[in-house]
């Protein structure tokens, strides 16, 4: 009976969106922290090229978080 009464499309959508966004966004924030921290350390130690690479990692991580939040709000307000 359960198989027929559950809206599987909706439930599976909740599951995959939660897994992708719930792990992906914190991971992106982790990369933002990693990039920022390492970029500052590299800059202090005079390793400019390494600092730039880590800086890019930090910016991309932060941009991913911001984009994910904006995207989710746009999707929700479209209901």
């Amino acid at each position: 009976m359960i198989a027929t009464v559950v809206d599987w499309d909706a439930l599976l959508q909740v599951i995959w969106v939660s897994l992708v966004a719930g792990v992906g966004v914190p991971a992106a924030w982790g990369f933002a922290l990693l990039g920022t921290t390492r970029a500052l350390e590299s800059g202090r130690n005079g390793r400019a090229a390494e600092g730039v690479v880590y800086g890019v990692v930090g910016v991309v991580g932060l941009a991913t978080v911001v984009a994910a939040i904006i995207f989710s709000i746009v999707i929700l307000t479209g209901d």
Partner: protein
Amino acid sequence: MGSEIIVVIVVATALIFDFTNGFHDTANVVATSISTRAMPPRVAVGYASILNFVGAFVSLEVAATVANDVVSVNANSIGLLAVFAGLVGAIAWNLITWYFGLPSSSSHALIGGMVGAVFVAEGSENVFFEEGILGKVMIPALVAPVLAFIVGGLAIVVLYRIVGRLRPGPVSGGFRFGQVISGGLLALAHGTNDAQKTMGVITLALVANGTLSGDEFHVPDWVVGSAATAIALGTYVGGWRIIKTMGSRIHKMDAAQGFAAQGSSATVILAASHVGFPLSTTHTISGAVIGSGAAKRLSAVRWGVAGNIVLAWVLTLPAAAVIGGLTFLVARAFGTGAAGPIIVSAAILTGAGMLFARRSREGAAPGVVPAPGSTPS
């Protein structure tokens, strides 16, 4: 005239429920931010109340589920009485669990109360047990905390892999700042999912009164605005006893765990809101909190406390249903006019006042926040 008075009482009762929902549930939203010291308690609660208000305007999918898919009421005074009794069942259960410091679920209390009252008032044919209650409430209710547990656990494992070799000071600061964002999203998600349940119930009452047509789902703007305001005010007043349970009694969290728990539960609730599943914020964030703790170290989780929370969840639906059904019988005993709701409202207000007075005498009045790291009672 009699039915108009009942509508006013039902709307007021629904908004009081919404207030108690914010009071009871949203403490869970800010608990992790407070326990990791990402935000001072008053700032966290104020911030959460603003985002609850905003969140109420985001979507109407959950309101449609509550108004159309769980129960139906006939457009008469019995239908109105049933909606009123369902709300009283939910409020009574929320007060009982608040008094004993148990994180129950306002959402399931509301649905349980409505099901019990409508079952007694209108019969089983007006309660949609399969597609509605089982398919859109019970199954998602079981899936959500498990999903939040898995997502919260995976998120913290991934986070530790990414930042594990960094110096702890700046990383903790970064995650505390991240909690301002994740806590805000969780508050927004709570407002989105929970305020809509009240909107759905008020809409149901307006349909029962004949004010709105039952053929086409529509939530008036004043219903959205008043539900948003009530849940935001309830959040601001806060349920401090439950902050203590969620924030420190399950396990001691670091800022990364708090961030992972808030982020994963916000994601699950927002995704569920998008498809119209009326989830419980409490269930979901509890699952994420436990998942983020268990992923680090199984013994860090106080499983006994987690077990008590599960017990409260299991009891919520049937207990609220029984109270809702009994409330309908009591209100109906005074006829189909406004006398029953007025008498029941007076009784519930008196009971609530007595519980607050007793709690205050015991020295654990709302507004008293235990110092971080204090021994849980």
